[in-house]
């Protein structure tokens, strides 16, 4: 496997405000995710449900740097964080998870299909590998219209084994389209470790084989992600050419609600492994940095927690008090006008 280049602790050219923003965004993601299993067990949320805990740096380090809604984002079913980072309100997210008319997809999409085109967020996708062929067209449209905008497309390590991903990579490499691929490499596809899913572990080589340059980076440190993303986004805008980031991370919870840190997980990863990665929790890391720099004190920490708690509670309250979609809407939206 390609060795991850753990960046030396460079001094980031980053202000206190920006650091606080990163912290706040990651914490908002975390606290929102923490609420959704609860709501599932209360039977307020149904279907499949996948949390982003542990991977927050992958959205916080990248999405805030985009020019939304002109830049476009595509991602997987593990999409709550992406929606929130794009600017979809917690209310609309929670209402969608609860299948309410006020949800960002009117209740028709659910957890795997959050979407908010007005924010540049073209949505989650329930099909492993599904968004990557779509990214070819989004990238082509951005190039076609002569814009300097880019498409950021997230997907998992398991998706690297989907044929459509390779067809798409090749087309993007051939046509040279402005797409940034973010491999959310949390090492597992459900219960299958990358060692058991691929014949060759250097994912960057897989992208290169199709003409897309890339690198492997540490994704537990949001400042590292942010720094690399800044350079890479600039480069894509300038050259119009794609780039691939294999971002090492870890999901702290099971694959989804059906693999809730219980039975299934025991078969594929150890408590030790999980706790080792939890020590690199991206939120704890930036909090430590913030403290270290004297950018935050306990009172401020509590204030942020309180503010976020209120946001999540408000979102739940909003969603629970929203109406279900009207039954007449069953046949609406099959077609656009």
């Amino acid at each position, binding site marked *: 496997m390609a060795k991850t280049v753990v960046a030396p602790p460079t001094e980031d050219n980053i202000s206190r405000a920006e650091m606080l923003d990163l912290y706040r965004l990651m914490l908002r993601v975390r606290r929102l995710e923490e609420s959704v299993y609860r709501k599932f067990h209360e039977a307020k949320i149904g279907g499949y449900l996948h949390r982003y805990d542990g991977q927050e740096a992958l959205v916080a380090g990248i999405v805030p740097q985009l020019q939304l809604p002109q830049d*476009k984002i595509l991602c997987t079913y593990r999409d709550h964080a992406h929606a929130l980072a794009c600017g979809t309100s917690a209310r609309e997210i929670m209402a969608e998870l609860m299948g309410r008319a006020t*949800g*960002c*997809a*009117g*209740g*028709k*999409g659910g957890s795997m*299909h959050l*979407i*908010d*085109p*007005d924010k540049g967020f*073209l*949505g989650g*996708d*329930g*099909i492993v590998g*599904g968004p*990557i*062929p*779509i*990214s*070819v*067209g*989004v*990238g*082509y*449209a*951005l190039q*076609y*219209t002569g814009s300097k905008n880019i498409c950021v497309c997230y997907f998992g390590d398991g998706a690297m084994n989907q*044929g*459509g991903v390779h*067809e*798409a990579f*090749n*087309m993007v490499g*051939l*046509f040279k389209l402005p797409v940034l691929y973010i491999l959310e490499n949390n090492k597992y596809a459900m219960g299958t470790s990358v060692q058991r899913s691929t014949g060759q572990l250097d994912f960057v080589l897989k992208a290169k084989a199709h003409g897309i340059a890339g690198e492997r980076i540490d994704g537990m440190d949001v400042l590292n992600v942010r720094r690399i993303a800044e350079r890479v986004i600039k480069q894509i805008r300038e050259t119009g050419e794609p780039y691939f980031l294999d971002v090492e991370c870890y999901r702290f919870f099971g694959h989804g609600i059906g693999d809730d840190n219980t039975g299934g997980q025991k078969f594929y990863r150890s408590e030790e492994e999980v706790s080792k990665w939890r020590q690199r929790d991206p939120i704890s890391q930036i909090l430590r940095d913030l403290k270290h720099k004297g950018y935050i004190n306990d009172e401020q920490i509590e204030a942020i927690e309180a503010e976020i708690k209120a946001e999540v509670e408000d979102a739940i309250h909003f969603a629970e008090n929203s109406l279900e979609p009207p039954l007449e809407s069953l046949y*609406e*939206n*099959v*077609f*656009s*006008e």
Partner: protein
Amino acid sequence: MAVMRYQQAVRLAMTEEMRRDPNVFLLGEEIAQYQGTYRVTEGMLQEFGERRVVDTPISEIGIAGMATGAAMAGLRPVAEFMTWSFALSAMDQLINHAAKITYMSGGRIQCPVVFRGPAGVGTQLSAQHSHSLESWFAHTPGFKVVMPATPADAKGLLKTAIRDNNPIIFMEHAGLYGLSGEVPDDTEFMIPFGQAAVRREGTDISLVAYSRGVQMCLKAAEALAKDNISAEVIDLRTLVPLDMATVVASITKTHRAVVVQEEWRNVGFAAELATRIYEQAFDELDAPVERVAGADVPMPYAKNLERAAIPTDADIVAAAKRALA
């Protein structure tokens, strides 16, 4: 009116729409430099350039995804499948993405994309190259399914398709590409979806078909006329949306019907058509609806077997006579 071939009419529709709307572009295998496997896109690279007539690798998933993504991002792609048989590789992108994104997004995303290309049987292309799959696509909510039977319709329906804001399955019949007919010059000539055409009026029996089946029905109607049987021929034009009103009106007059489909019989579109006829006109029927369809076998290569697997005008004549017996 100009007289032109079906294949030229398809090209004319695309050309006119590309001149009109800079967001329309083409993509597919061998459509640009090679001028199209069936020469449908001949000359279009020369007129519109590489940006708007895009040769792709042999990557059907990629093509379907590229078209869908571009449509989601505001363009109006027209993607060619070299033949519809190859769309089998792209089903996930077509069904789970193109057809569903509007619904899944609660209507917030439009997906104005046309998937087109030749389908149909008849030139010994054997088992893997003889699909049309309209029954599958009609089964899947989110697609409009268009199957023109004449050059004029090829133009008028394709122009409507390109201007529609939804994913369209536009199936040409390779066996019709050489068919000549009058085609209106009018650059605003458009045929609305969901309006069947009565291709021939008659009083004794209704022959209902689409695509090349319509041409077979017209031949069958000729033959039936010699036996003093007056057959009405209905061309559905679009399977989704489906114009049952015209079908029911015809059967209310004739009280008998033959439904025709080239593809495999089992769970095919003709079964849906027959079922809807029963549901909507049971009391009008004086005989069971006769179903003429392809044999339920992978298409054999040998000429005699292939011929036996494909329905013919003679089969339609025989079916009509059974219904009238």
